[in-house]
């Protein structure tokens, strides 16, 4: 059985609310069947608009959206058969949990005994058996969230959309719900499109992440690739922590380039630069730069420790390095790091492969 690679397809979709500003620009996005894709981006980046267009609450200004090969732009939301979890859960406050879950089944005229079975199954999936007769107001935020998830799945949709569903929960609950949703996705194999602005949530849950900015998908790839190999400086900056150097390419060859900074040269991996003389932003992850590099690294520079912050399992060290006073290092806490003291001069080293020369900011 072959998996439909284009289960959801955004084909050259534009969206403008006022006819002046495009909030979504020429969006091209394919989502495979059974995939968990997260739309990640700052607020106003167009990710929620995309979700609303998919759900049918907004219509694309240009282009077409396909679901399982069918164009859906002209199909009203209630005929799309897409499950949706809303930001504030949107449980019907005047109905019990049971009635909430029965709503999508009743409108589909599913017989009561079959519906009851489906409701039981959905409730046990989110481990809320025995809560069927409660009103939503009597449930905690986490429980309401589970009900919302169960309601979006109870009618066996092929596609479920989630619009920042964990935004209102506290940190611990949010983390456990992340795993729970991930496990539900794995066990029933439904396609999920998830919207969030929380990058750790996206990294934890998704098969692939689409990073949105300014109405465009900046990068669509798996979480590890997104983190390790950002294709532009926005993604590098938005996902995880990032140290940057702005400079100019002074020499470029296959797989390596020399970047001229204000007072030094560094070696980097050319990603989005091609020619000598181009401006660039070099991005280095904090954990890829080491203090007292022992092995042979092709970038070794001296810097001065400006700040040391203890974080339990690691220590964050801020260093003034090559004119960048915001250079952050993460040092695992072990007894060997004795010379990390405020004001000390230390050697910092990294591999040129980990220094990615991206577009200038």
């Amino acid at each position, binding site marked *: 059985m072959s998996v439909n690679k284009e289960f959801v397809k955004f084909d050259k979709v534009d969206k403008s609310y006022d006819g002046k500003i495009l909030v979504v620009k020429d969006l091209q996005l394919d989502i495979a069947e059974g995939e968990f894709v997260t739309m990640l981006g700052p607020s106003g980046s167009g990710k929620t608009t995309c979700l609303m267009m998919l759900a049918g*609450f907004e219509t694309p200004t240009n282009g077409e959206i396909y679901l399982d090969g069918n164009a859906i732009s002209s199909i*009203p939301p*209630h*005929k799309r058969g897409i499950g949706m979890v*809303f930001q*504030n859960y949107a449980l*019907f406050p005047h109905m019990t949990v049971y009635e909430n879950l029965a709503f*999508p089944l009743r409108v589909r005229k599913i017989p009561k005994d079959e519906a009851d079975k489906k409701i039981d199954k959905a409730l046990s999936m989110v481990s809320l058996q025995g809560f069927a007769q409660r009103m939503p107001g009597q449930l905690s935020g986490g429980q309401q969230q589970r009900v919302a998830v169960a309601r979006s799945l109870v*009618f066996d949709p092929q596609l479920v*959309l989630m619009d920042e569903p964990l935004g209102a929960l506290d940190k611990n609950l949010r983390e456990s719900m992340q795993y729970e949703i991930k496990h539900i996705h794995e066990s029933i194999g439904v396609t999920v499109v998830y919207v969030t602005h929380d990058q750790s949530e996206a990294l934890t849950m998704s098969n692939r992440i689409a990073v949105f900015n300014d109405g465009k998908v900046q990068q669509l790839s798996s979480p590890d690739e997104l983190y390790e190999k950002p294709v532009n400086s926005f993604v590098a900056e938005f996902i995880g922590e990032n140290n940057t150097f702005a400079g100019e390419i002074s020499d470029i060859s296959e797989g390596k380039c020399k970047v001229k900074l204000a007072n030094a040269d560094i070696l980097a991996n050319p990603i989005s630069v091609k020619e000598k003389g181009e401006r660039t932003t070099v991005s280095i992850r904090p954990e890829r730069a080491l203090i007292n590099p022992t092995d042979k690294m092709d970038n070794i520079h001296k810097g001065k420790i400006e700040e040391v912050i203890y974080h339990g399992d690691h220590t964050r060290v801020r260093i003034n390095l090559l004119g960048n006073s915001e250079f952050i290092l993460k040092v695992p806490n072990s007894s060997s790091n004795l010379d990390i003291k405020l004001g000390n001069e230390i050697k910092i080293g990294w591999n040129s492969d980990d220094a990615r020369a991206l577009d200038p900011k």
Partner: protein
Amino acid sequence: MSSENKQILTTDGTPLEVSLKKAEKKNKIKAFLLVAPLLLFIIITYVFPIGDMLMRSVDDKMVTEMLPKTYKSMEKWDGKELPPEEVFEAFYIDFQKLIEEEREGKLSTQLNYTKNGFKSIIKKLRRKSKSFEEGNYKEQIMAVHRRWADVEYWRAIKRRAPAYTYQKYLKGMDMYENEKGEIVNVSEDRRVHRILWLRTLEIAFFVTVFCFLMAYPIAHLLATLPMKYSNLLMICVLLPFWTSLLVRTASWMILLQQQGIVNDFFVTIGLVTDDNRVEMMYNKTGSYVAMTQILLPFMVLPLYSVMKTISPSLMRAGKSLGGTPFVAFWKVYFPLTIPGIGAGCLLVFILAIGYYITPALVGGASGTLISNQIAFHMKSTLDWSFASAMGLMLLSGVLVIYWLYNKLVGIDNIKLG
């Protein structure tokens, strides 16, 4: 001794519990003093007048006090035959006293309410009693007019003996207590109040329905429009509130009268001919139109305040789960607006049931309500006790509706704003 049981003392040695209570008591008194003026105001302007109204509506002391001796002597009389001489004597003494105080006219008015025909015979008795001789008053009084020899009239006097009466309430229902003490309807051609009660209920009911039908979409629009438009719309809704009720009613008169703007318009577009203009005023239509317009904000505001709290994502959820827009509205949105509907309908109905100025001005004969009748008795017949009785009947009607609403919907399920 464990520390939990140990009494906590303040620095000056008094137990903390006592001094806390002392401090709280002071605060409570201060708080009470702040609300005291309002409390006093409510007692003076609300509790006292309603209590007075209640007393007035059942008060029948006037006759009792005018004929004290008569009623005392009547206690033994069984009312089957003409009363004995001592009753006539007592009546004569009471009557002479009334003549001295020039109050016999009031007595005749009061007795005439109970039975027609008292007015003339009391007048006659007054004239003749000047030349009465001492003793044998029964003969002398009966000689004044043959009605004085009729036992029915003496029974009528006796009926006025109790200091309290519910006659006015019966009258408000077009009923009365006949000579035998049975409660019967008044003859059909004299039943005015029942028609008025029914018409009041009918007009209040339909005004509530019209207000609801018009206010629901407006309130929904108000709750969903962007702020800058909804503010403007809100001003339009509230504008009538800022205009005098009389001015608004008068403008309806200008619009609705036969030579008015609406009729002119109908004639212009050829809907009616010039000599066949529609009567929209001085009848029920006038009351309906003007009252609906005036009471509309009272329906819009509670609905709006409830709709404002309903998250738009609920409708979206309803649709995304497969409900058609109508199902999503009917199963999700509408049930959530019920507290607002209840509040608005209750408010409009209760206001409409007691409406006075507008029906008085545009209602004409067929569009007036019970409150206009109350006002009529307050101002024209000066039968205040009857007006009070009807006022209280209106009040209890409202309370019944309130109770019914509580039974059906639940009063905690109401949201006024």
